């Protein structure tokens, strides 16, 4: 048990860096470049941690504690998600709610720390981020709740049961669920087509613009927290794809494979399409909601229609 816990912890802490590195590598590949090493995000993290940081005079304590909240919230949320070995640390009914709102707390701290700087850019970024998260949340709950109804399990483990338990309905639900979670990953992870992680243009940024005033350790923590969040959402996708009752080592391998595949997919999406115009981002995120409604109707058909 302890070993499993350690493996999960190590993967949770370090794989996010490699995932980000892999996304960048994929983008470099499509652009015909060699690209930086997949470990580059890790090196950057170390570099930032070593650096001194500057804090604006207009900020208050909120600005200082927000990065810690960001990391703590994703790590705490990570306790409830079945990770690499297929185990979650804490299994309890309603873990979905704790998961979503712990992430929400981290995001809230990040938003108010951005507002705290008093910069017009950061306020703009914060309002965009809040807006998009507000659309993501209901779709996420609709999806997970339907899955729970379908499998009858009131925890994240219900995701494992989707494909195996419900025949053709289960497969359909799983397909839609993967798409929904992938869009959620793109939105929450601040990737193209919702956000552009590479841009230097403050006026178009969403996630990055909120970090404009952060430097050194603070910046490192925020970026790390964000990539851990991406891994957590990938874990949910992994739960849908990987069969439950397979040996632990095989499960870890499959998990890493899924994470790697998702990174490549994100990189490919980023290379193949332009970023959506800001007002149309809502329409893109609403795809999640409409697919979640489809999932609900599928589940109703299965449960009540027989």
């Amino acid at each position, binding site marked *: 048990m302890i070993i499993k816990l350690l493996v999960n912890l190590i993967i949770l802490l370090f794989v996010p860096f490699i995932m980000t590195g892999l996304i960048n590598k994929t*983008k470099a590949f499509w652009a015909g470049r060699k690209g930086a090493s997949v470990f580059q995000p890790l090196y950057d993290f170390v570099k930032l941690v070593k650096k001194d940081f500057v804090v604006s005079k207009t900020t208050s304590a909120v600005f200082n504690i927000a990065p810690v909240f960001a990391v703590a919230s994703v790590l705490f949320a990570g306790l409830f998600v079945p990770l690499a070995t297929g185990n979650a640390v804490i299994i309890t009914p309603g873990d979905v709610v704790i998961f979503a709102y712990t992430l929400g707390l981290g995001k809230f701290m990040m938003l108010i720390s951005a507002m705290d700087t008093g910069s017009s850019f950061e306020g703009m970024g914060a309002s965009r981020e809040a807006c998009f998260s507000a659309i993501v949340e209901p779709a996420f709950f609709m999806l997970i709740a339907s899955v729970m109804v379908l499998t009858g399990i009131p925890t994240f483990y219900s995701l494992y049961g989707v494909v195996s338990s419900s025949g053709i309905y289960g497969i359909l639900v799983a397909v839609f669920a993967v798409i929904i979670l992938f869009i959620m990953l793109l939105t929450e992870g601040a990737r193209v087509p919702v956000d552009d992680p590479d841009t230097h243009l*403050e006026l178009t940024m969403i996630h990055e613009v909120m970090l404009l005033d952060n430097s050194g350790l603070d910046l490192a923590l925020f970026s790390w927290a964000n990539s851990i969040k991406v891994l957590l959402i990938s874990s949910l996708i992994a739960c849908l794809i990987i069969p439950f009752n397979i040996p632990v080592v095989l499960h870890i391998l499959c998990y890493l494979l899924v994470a790697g595949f998702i990174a490549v997919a994100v990189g490919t999406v*980023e290379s193949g399409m*332009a*970023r*959506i115009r800001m007002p149309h981002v809502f329409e893109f995120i609403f795809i999640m909601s409409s697919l979640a409604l489809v999932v609900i109707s599928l589940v109703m058909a299965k449960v009540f229609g027989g």
Partner: protein
Amino acid sequence: MARWTKVKNNTKINLSDIPGMGIEELKKQIIEMKMRPVGFFGKDWGFGCVRLFVILADDANSDLYISSAIFGPNDKSYESITQDVPSFHIFEREFYEQFGIEPLNHPWLKPVRVNQDEYQFFEMEGEEVHQVAVGPIHAGVIEPGHFRFMCNGEKVYHLEIMLGYQNRGVEDMMLKNHSGQLAESICGDSAVAHCIAYSQAIEVLKGIQISNKSQLIRKIALEMERMAIHIGDMGAISGDIAYLMGAAVFGATRTLVINTMLDLSGSRFGRGLITVGGVNYDLSDEFIEKAIKTFDKVGKDVDRMVKTMLKNSTVMSRLEKTGIVSAEKAKDIGLVGMAAKASGVELDTRFDFPDKWIKELDIERVPFCGTGDVYSRFKLRYKEVKESICMIKKLFEKWKEYKEEPLVADGIGNNYIPDAMVISTVEGWRGEVVHIVMTDINRKISRYKIKDPSFNNWYGLALAVRNNGISDFPLCNKSFNLSYSGNDL
């Protein structure tokens, strides 16, 4: 019309031939003539007087009209022309800034490039309106400029652009010690265009006739500059909408073009190529062979990339109907060059004031029907890149006929024709670059006036972003790609 002197591009004008009249009369005639301003600038006329020169362009007939008015030591104001002909707005602001003669009732009398401390921003009030201030220091390696947005949420009501941070006093430096090197650094991405305009002006005033060969090489360099910057801009537009493939391919293709320039002149941006009296470096048969191969590849790559890109719906949704400047507005505020062409106003010095090569090489103007959005400006660049490749090939062929001619003309003296003026316009990639040079009776240069197309076009950008999302501003900005230093001088 008797009170205006009709002149041609790049020819000597005797100052004594330039008519003068009262400012009231001048204003009346400007309104009647309905022509586009090319120059509107003052010169100290001794004893506290200022003489205002006005140059209008009749693009359809390739003519320029010049006239002037004198302000006595006590004339410190006049009724502004902008009220009736809006395209004079920026010229009058500049004239006011340089000579302190106030255009009364000018709707937008703000500093152009000095005294930013006194700048009064236009402000909107209301609970939902908020201001966003960007710059003068920006992210990335770009020039300084301050942008002030009046927004309601994501929507931009109004943008005001305050420039002048790059003001180096080029016009005065040109008077003291003019050189091609200085002309090249007026605006780094139009080094060739500015240096050609400068050299042409000096050549006319010194009475030098340059060889056909160097004329051809200059034209080739100008088209290469156009290609390189256009392709680079297409990459930058792709980068701004996070379309990585475009950014990568156009970036690599642009390098091929500027490296060809490096082969020719030893500088990727063509610095040091053009000199008064001709050019410093010659083409060779091997160079031409290699360059044609390179440009064929460039043409093919750009073709393929543009086609792939414009098939992508996400790209199109970003480019189309973003940052629109209507043809009417473009004409009103006096946009020139690329920005005007994209809005459907055909202004191109190469064809409006053609030199002999345009006729001899049978180069035809192909009108571009643009709607003035970012897509049009992107598409226009693509069109011009292809045209430039064709044009360069024809010019290469022509070069072979004049192979034996000298690079630099003989007998370049130090003396200028006295009491003369020349208007030298060149179509740089961004639009018309105008250098106006005057000499006095002592055979010295007494006034050097420079107009970069950015000077006309910055206001177009401000109009383009109105009612657009603030997140689309960088894209609009990139589609114009105006020069800060060209405006600030």
